């Protein structure tokens, strides 16, 4: 079997699994976990684009997520705008915010950028808490409509109130996200990004317009996070300022680091592992009566950075039976 065939087989199997899993699973709670995993996978992938590929440490990713969620929710509940349009609006407004946040990033790096992005998210969270007329404050927005059914024939339509159908929407958005990111990093753009990440001054000296690239990446990353937020709002049908909290960002970055920063698959893998792992821990905790979930999160993050910088993806490629041409995270590996 040539590597190419292996890859194709894996793809076919993967796609088939992705699209049949929701059909096979009947446990609604399991479907709910899958939905949450999917939303996190979009968030980790988009965060990874910015931080993993472009090297811009963003600790305010939850802000983009929150902007998407609040935009779509407010449009739907106050103005009766179709949630599908809301998804786009949420993504676009988040993208605009990403562009804005990208401007100071042109001059900042490392801890300066980290604090600026945290500050940005904190300010937005306080706005969501205090602009009560618009956001209902800490109470949050409830009664958000689900995605509008898509009519097939005059009396048959696809509804999105069930976890299963929603999961399909989510899978499609996730695939689009990954596809877009893959297109970017496989193109000349990706080469520039890597140069930017590894040596910004060097990149500038060979004539790379770093400003344009940074702003583009900030905007695109924020767009997908915003769409994820809007999807979440119409799934959960309730959002609150907690959506914008630092804890959400920490979850996103722990997942990405665990899966493998700067790889395409790592963030998705990390989202899957940690979501399921914490569900499993919840069950173990009930049995042993100990609340250790977050302690393990912290340990995982430290151990990952210290001993397995390439994350789980980095471990997988070391397995003897793993198709070697798939490479260390593929063409994008570090």
């Amino acid at each position, binding site marked *: 079997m040539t590597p190419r065939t292996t890859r194709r087989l894996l793809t076919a199997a993967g796609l088939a699994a992705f699209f049949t899993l929701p059909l096979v699973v009947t446990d609604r709670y399991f479907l709910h976990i899958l939905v949450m995993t999917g939303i996190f996978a979009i968030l980790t992938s988009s965060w990874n684009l910015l*931080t993993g590929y472009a*090297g811009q*440490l963003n600790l305010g990713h939850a802000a983009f997520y929150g902007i998407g969620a609040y935009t779509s929710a407010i449009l739907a509940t106050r103005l009766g705008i179709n949630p599908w349009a809301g998804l786009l609006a949420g993504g676009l407004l988040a993208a605009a915010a990403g562009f804005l946040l990208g401007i*100071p990033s042109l*001059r*900042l*790096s*490392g*801890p*300066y950028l*980290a*604090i*600026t992005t*945290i*500050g*940005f998210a*904190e*300010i937005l969270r*306080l706005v969501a*808490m*205090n602009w009560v007329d618009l956001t209902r404050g800490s109470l949050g927005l409830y009664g958000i409509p689900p995605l509008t059914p898509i009519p097939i024939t005059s009396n048959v339509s696809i509804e999105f109130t069930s976890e299963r159908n929603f999961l399909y929407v989510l899978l499609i958005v996730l695939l689009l996200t990954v596809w877009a990111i893959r297109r970017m990093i496989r193109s000349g753009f990706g080469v520039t990004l890597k140069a930017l990440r*590894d040596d910004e001054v060097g990149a500038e000296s060979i004539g790379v317009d770093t400003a344009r690239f940074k702003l583009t990446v900030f905007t695109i990353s924020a767009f997908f996070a915003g769409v994820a937020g809007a999807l979440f709002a119409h799934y959960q049908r309730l959002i609150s300022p907690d959506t914008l909290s*630092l804890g959400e960002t*920490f979850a996103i*970055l*722990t997942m990405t*680091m665990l899966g493998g*920063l700067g790889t395409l698959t790592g963030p998705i893998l990390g989202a899957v592992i940690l979501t399921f792992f914490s569900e499993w821990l919840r069950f173990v905790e009930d049995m042993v009566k*100990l*609340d*250790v979930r*977050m*302690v393990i*999160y*912290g*340990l*995982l*993050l*430290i151990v990952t*950075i*210290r001993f397995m*910088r390439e994350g789980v993806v980095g471990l997988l490629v070391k397995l003897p039976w793993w198709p070697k041409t798939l490479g260390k995270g593929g063409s994008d590996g570090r």
Partner: protein
Amino acid sequence: MDSLFLQQVVNGLIIGSVYSLIAIGLTMIFGVMRISNFAHGDYAMVGAYVAVFVMMWLPGPLGWVNALLAAAVIVAVAGVVSELLIFRPLLDRRTDIDMIMVSIGLFILLENLAQFFFEARPRMLADPFGGNTVDLGLVSTSQLRLFCLAFSCVAIAGLQVFLNRSKTGIAIRATSQNSRAARLMGIDINRIYTLTFGLGSAMAGIGGVLYGTLFAVYPTMGAIPTLKAFVVTILGGMGNIRGAIFGGFILGVAETLGGSYLAMEYKNAIGFVIIILVLLIRPQGLFGQREGV
């Protein structure tokens, strides 16, 4: 000047002095090792819990004084251990990202270990001055608050003297300015790293006891000092100790005045707004060059 304005300035100076105390450790560690430690506020939390336990054995003002000492020593040890185990192995990595991420991991770990061992219930540290208040006509405050202000100033001044006069202090400053040159001059860089981390976390530990006595001690109390310390540090220029001192007082007063006269709801955002403005206009911070200590 009316009494409200004066009162708010005094409130701001008092809380600002505690911000400075905590931020100095952060800025020192950044100056010497280029580590941005997001777990710094958790050293303050550990210090506060040390005080809680010391004061269980030894209540009263004497216990409180001992608690300050114990917190300084134990947190210094904890800081050095975390430096050796977690931060030092990453020193040769090229990016800030690893260092910041690992410190976030430490932050999550410490906060939740505290929750695990000490439960979420807040505890109070008994006021060594028995809650006595001071009424100065236009301004009211407590003996404890005045003590915090004075103590922070003394501790900060002491540190300055140490850094400027003692041989070790000068070595720390030299390393901060140029570690390669310092090494060539025969300074044992690793010893300086350990020392800086120990000293920086001890300051945070002491700050934690003051913070815990002024307010309360609870597992998640480290988050706010961490963010405030970063704001202060960036205001003053990272690695700049004098900048951190002024930065602390500026942030404290800006928060109380901004909260009182502009928008109380956004009091906790004032610091962020200031640093975003500062970074846009003057990325090296308000006080001079980025490198100096």
